[in-house]
């Protein structure tokens, strides 16, 4: 009876020890992975930081206006070019409702045109 109990306990202890070591190594591995991830996050943040500076550099207004002048043919807008929605003339008369043509009608017209 007591022998069985001893066996049971020994097995339990071994299982527990194995489990413990397994968990320990797993945690170690995960921590290494976490460290690497943090490392790469920092690297990426540094890259973003540098890219932001470069973006700001490339967006120098003088450079942009030079590019716009050479490639877009645009000139600075003046106040007289701006108009408010209210200043637009109203549409004169509302046309009488025209029934939407059916697909057959459109095809027929296309065929006739040809």
């Amino acid at each position, binding site marked *: 009876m007591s022998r069985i109990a001893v066996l049971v306990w020994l097995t339990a202890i071994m299982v527990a020890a194995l489990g413990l070591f397994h968990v320990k190594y797993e945690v170690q591995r995960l921590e290494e992975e976490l460290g690497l991830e943090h490392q790469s996050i*920092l690297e990426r943040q540094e890259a973003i930081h540098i890219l932001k500076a470069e973006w700001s550099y490339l967006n120098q207004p003088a450079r942009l206006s030079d590019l716009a002048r050479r490639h877009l043919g645009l000139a600075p807008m003046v106040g007289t070019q701006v108009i408010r929605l209210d200043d637009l003339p109203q549409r004169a008369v509302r046309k009488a409702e025209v029934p939407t043509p059916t697909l057959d009608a459109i095809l027929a017209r296309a065929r006739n045109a040809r």
Partner: protein
Amino acid sequence: MNRPDATFVQTRRPLDLDPGPDPTSMVLLDGTIKQCLEIGRTRLLAAGLIFAMAFLVVGLRLVDVSLLTDGNEPRLAATPRSNALETIRADIVDRNGVVLATTLPTASLYANPRQVLDPEAVAARLSAALPELPEPELAAKLAADRSFVWLKRKLSPRQQHEVNRLGIPGLYFQHEPDRVYPHGALTAHVIGFAGMDNRGLSGIEQAFEERLRGATRPLALSLDLRVQHVLTEELATAMATFRAIGAAGLVLDAENGEVVAMASLPSFDPARPGESDGDARFNRASLGVYEMGSVFKIFTTAMALDQGAVGLQDGYDVSQPIRVASYTIRDFKPKNRWLSVPEIFIYSSNIGSVHMAMDSGTPAQKAFLGNLGLTRAAQIEVPEVGQPMVPSPWREINTMTISYGHGLAVSPLQMVGAVAAVVNGGDLVPATLLKRGDGERVVVRRVLSARTSRDMRWLMRLAVQNGTGRLADAPGYLVGGKTGTADKLRGRRYARSARIASFIGAFPMDRPRYVIFAMIDEPKGIESTHGYATGGWVAAPVVRRVIERMGPLLGIQPKALDEEEGADRHLVPVNLKGTVFAAN
């Protein structure tokens, strides 16, 4: 138990039979021994109880931790800080978040000469890759009997790549942070620059040294880089056209005092401040003080109107020059007749302004200009602030000359602050280079009445519509302003040929949002301006183009041209080109 006083009373017990429990076979104790045993038992009991309690607590906790509590990972784990990149100095950004100054890692090249095998050959190869390093100097450095020598600090990534490609043993890189200004000369005067040790030496970099050092949160300025560019570009164009020696400009938010743009030309490269001369590093917009000329008539007129010394209907005969001591005060373009107050303003009559200032009086002028912040150094974040040159004592002759902008030298920054107070309804707001919150408005003091402010807005608009500032009129934006042309002091005399041409304006005049100042230092007249180099010909067009370009950028709705007629007017006699019309 072997104490001499212990008494054992043992009864006799026969060995051949089991007597069972013998009521008499007891150890009878008494006296000191009994007492000792009693104490021992009590102590054992107490200790046992305490341990039992402790084990119970441990057991309960064990059950709690292992069975009852959620068996997951702890909810709060200490993670290494990775969400914020550690820089040794915070970025500086403009009001829209554009990076104006940042800290980037750079590589510095050093060598361990003891590990360099052939200094001559290495020097030759290295100076081929980095042409700015002279070969003999390199060879001498590499041949030294030391274990460390700097070869070049702060290489560009391309240079680092070149050196790496050579693959020379004994050369190493040290990573060092370096302050980088992506917009270079455009913002150089405001931002300033930092030295080799990344310590701020001028401008915002110096003023906010403590705030920037070791911080990660960027510092947001009130500058708008786009407006800064527009202002700088237009000033540079005018400077080139009129062969001027310098220029300065400011754009100020009239409501809350934010400096939207501050430019001083010539400028310098903040990455290499040592290579520029002192004149380029000098901030004309905040450190330079100048006699501003006729733009001061804004203050003279506002003062006279606010104190009731004159009304809009009043006027003076300006046909006679004023002689004081050895001076004669004349008009630049004499009208030789009676002029109303609005006419004096829009035609920029010195004589009329002197009369207005004299009717207000010297103490009043001193107090009024002091209230506008023109007699004390401006309050602004950058350390480069010019001390105004105030006459002492302030005599009557000073009152006369100051009325048209001579004899009191102020910085452009003070100028825009004072004009903002005149046009925004009468509140002096402190100028700032830091971005303010939405609707945040700090008022130092009230300097004139809302009514005077309204009159001044209208007068300034009139000066642009019909007066000396006509070239500043950007259609649709209701520009108002005043021109100024001041002869520069050369020693103790005014020089006729060297002058400051300026224009200060605000727009839109029905509810001014921005005050704009442009100043050109020593412009020379050219053919297209008929040889004139006055504020109206030189500085006013700059302001017009700046407004035309910044208006759409900042989303300011231009007015339809016919709507201008509805702007508030007063019934005053204004004689324009011979026809008297009553503006209403």
